[in-house]
């Protein structure tokens, strides 16, 4: 399948550099706005949980991180796949730029989960299906980063990374359904299920605000990373020279 010419034009490194430069401040400020409101409603306005008391407030950083850990992985795998099939350089760059951010979100999901598990379950860690599959996700990210770092040629590095990322996609539904397929200590889904979310609006709203904030955080930082990579890879072209000399 051939992509229309406009896609190639749109995803040209130069076009991306200019467009992303305009988008970054919008994403960044919107993110700050969502995060501040989310934190206010989550930490101050939302009532304590009837079972878990105040400890449940970890949810407002734990769940958005966990969602992002899977979302970023999908972005990474899909853009890796696009780079593999249509050889769009920008897709390769987006995949590699996503990996460290995804790994950071996965680490956060695990660490905040641990900090929540200790007071609620009495253990920092249990080898339960949800926790184990999320840990595998962290290893997939780290494997992707290590693999790409070990290959000198950027084209080959992108190809190898994309294959690894695509194979690892199998882990994503496992993470999501782990709480249904196995009897886990980890609680079931509260928001992402077909019937009504089993969470009160006063807690759902800050959760969703934080989720949007985290998504915008990813958008901002992945674009920043990708822009740097574009400059490096296109350093021999005239437009990069102009950008560097004008200092913007």
């Amino acid at each position, binding site marked *: 399948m051939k992509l229309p010419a406009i896609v190639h034009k749109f995803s040209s490194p130069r076009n991306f550099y200019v467009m992303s430069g305009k988008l970054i401040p919008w994403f960044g400020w919107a993110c700050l706005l969502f995060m501040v409101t989310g934190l206010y409603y989550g930490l*101050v306005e939302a009532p304590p949980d009837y079972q878990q008391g*105040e400890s449940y407030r970890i949810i407002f950083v734990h769940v958005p*991180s966990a969602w992002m850990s899977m979302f970023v992985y999908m972005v990474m795998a899909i853009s890796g796949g696009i780079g593999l099939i249509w050889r769009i350089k920008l897709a390769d760059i987006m995949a590699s730029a996503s990996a460290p951010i995804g790994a950071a979100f996965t680490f956060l999901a695990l660490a905040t989960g641990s900090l929540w598990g200790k007071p609620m379950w009495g253990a920092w860690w249990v080898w339960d299906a949800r926790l184990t599959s999320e840990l595998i996700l962290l290893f997939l990210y780290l494997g992707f980063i290590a693999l790409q770092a070990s290959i000198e040629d950027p084209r080959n590095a992108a190809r190898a990374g994309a294959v690894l990322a695509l194979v690892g996609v199998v882990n994503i539904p496992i993470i999501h359904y782990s709480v249904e397929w196995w009897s886990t200590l980890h609680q079931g889904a509260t928001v992402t299920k077909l019937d009504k979310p089993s969470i009160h609006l006063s807690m759902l709203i800050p959760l969703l605000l934080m989720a949007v904030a985290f998504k915008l955080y990813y958008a901002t930082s992945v674009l920043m990373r990708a822009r740097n990579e574009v400059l490096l890879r296109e350093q021999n072209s005239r437009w990069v020279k102009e950008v560097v000399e004008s200092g913007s």
Partner: protein
Amino acid sequence: MDLETFFHMGGYAFYVWSSYGLSFVVLLMIFLRPMMSKKRVMKDLRTKYRQQERQNNQAR
């Protein structure tokens, strides 16, 4: 609500504030890394272009 109850978090202060503190630090790192590497990339490329220009001038 007074500040003391707020920071006390019903006795879960350590777990709640560690989670938020850790998230803050990790998110900050995600943001600062590309900021710093942009500065480095710009500096490195500027040096490289200057060297190239010097070489071109000498060759002439």
